[in-house]
């Protein structure tokens, strides 16, 4: 059957949200403004979680102790994204990465940049699993995750 026979109605749905950060995450972003990456430590299992959590997802204990972690860490895994989709926040190509910051016990999701990303074959020579990266700060702090502009490979 010809495609034209199937009638389609096009539309867009826009829904506005104002989402609450809560105490822990408000403070996390306040620390970012001071160029500090802060995690929280669980009193029971002693893990340091970045982003911080108000409670430990495993022990279910309140996490009250703030701990500053290093601005450097290792790339636990990464992905080169070259796929556009509607309302994408970052321009492609970009690299999403899971970074274990020194002094933390969880992977932190951010982007790896500061290098020429246009050719994948060149990128893979620089970005490596287990490779070290460090945070590069945005000059202007807006109170969101891009206050850390990106992580760049440590030479």
């Amino acid at each position, binding site marked *: 059957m010809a495609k034209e026979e199937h*009638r389609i*109605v*096009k539309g867009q749905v*826009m*829904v*506005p949200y*104002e*989402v*609450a950060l809560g105490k822990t995450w408000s403070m996390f972003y306040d620390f970012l403004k001071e160029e500090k990456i802060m995690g929280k430590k669980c009193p029971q299992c002693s893990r340091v979680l970045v982003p911080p959590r108000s409670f430990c997802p495993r022990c279910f204990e309140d996490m009250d102790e703030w701990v500053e972690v290093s601005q450097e860490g290792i790339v636990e895994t990464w992905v080169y994204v070259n796929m556009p989709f509607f309302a994408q926040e970052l321009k492609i190509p970009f690299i999403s990465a899971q970074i274990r910051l020194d002094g933390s016990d969880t992977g932190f999701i951010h982007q790896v940049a500061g290098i020429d990303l246009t050719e994948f074959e060149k990128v893979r020579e620089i970005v490596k699993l287990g490779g070290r990266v460090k945070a590069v700060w945005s000059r202007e702090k807006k109170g969101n995750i891009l206050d850390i502009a990106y992580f760049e490979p440590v030479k």
Partner: protein
Amino acid sequence: MAKEYRTMRNDVTLPYQWALGKTWSRFFDGLKDGRIQGTKCAGCGRVYVPARSFCPVCFTDTTQWVDVKPEGKILTWTLVREKYLGQVQEPPYVVALIQLDGSDCGFSHFIGGFDLSDAGQLKRKLKTGAKVKAVWSPVRNADIRDITCFVPVE
């Protein structure tokens, strides 16, 4: 209470392309031609407008098409005064459930054609059971706005 901790604005916009399917395509083609069509259930005899591909009660296919009149009676109505995001019409406006003559269910649409700021007139004209008729849009796109609104029949 004063806001203790921050909030973040996060609007979500998403694009869609909805498939109408055979039954609703035919229903909207009818509107474009100035016809309001329903489908009749062979089991219970009910006529559905907008047309349905199956009877929600009997779960049988409804393949018999019938034309219903572009007029009917008001089953219920309300005056919308409040503004909210995503409204297709600027308030005030009246929405109503209309049982078109020859159908067995309510059909949703606007009621208009007179001054809505006069509450007295509004209540006189918009009684439950009052007769209304369709006003066709001069521009037709085979969608629900091919009918501009329904107006009271004096």
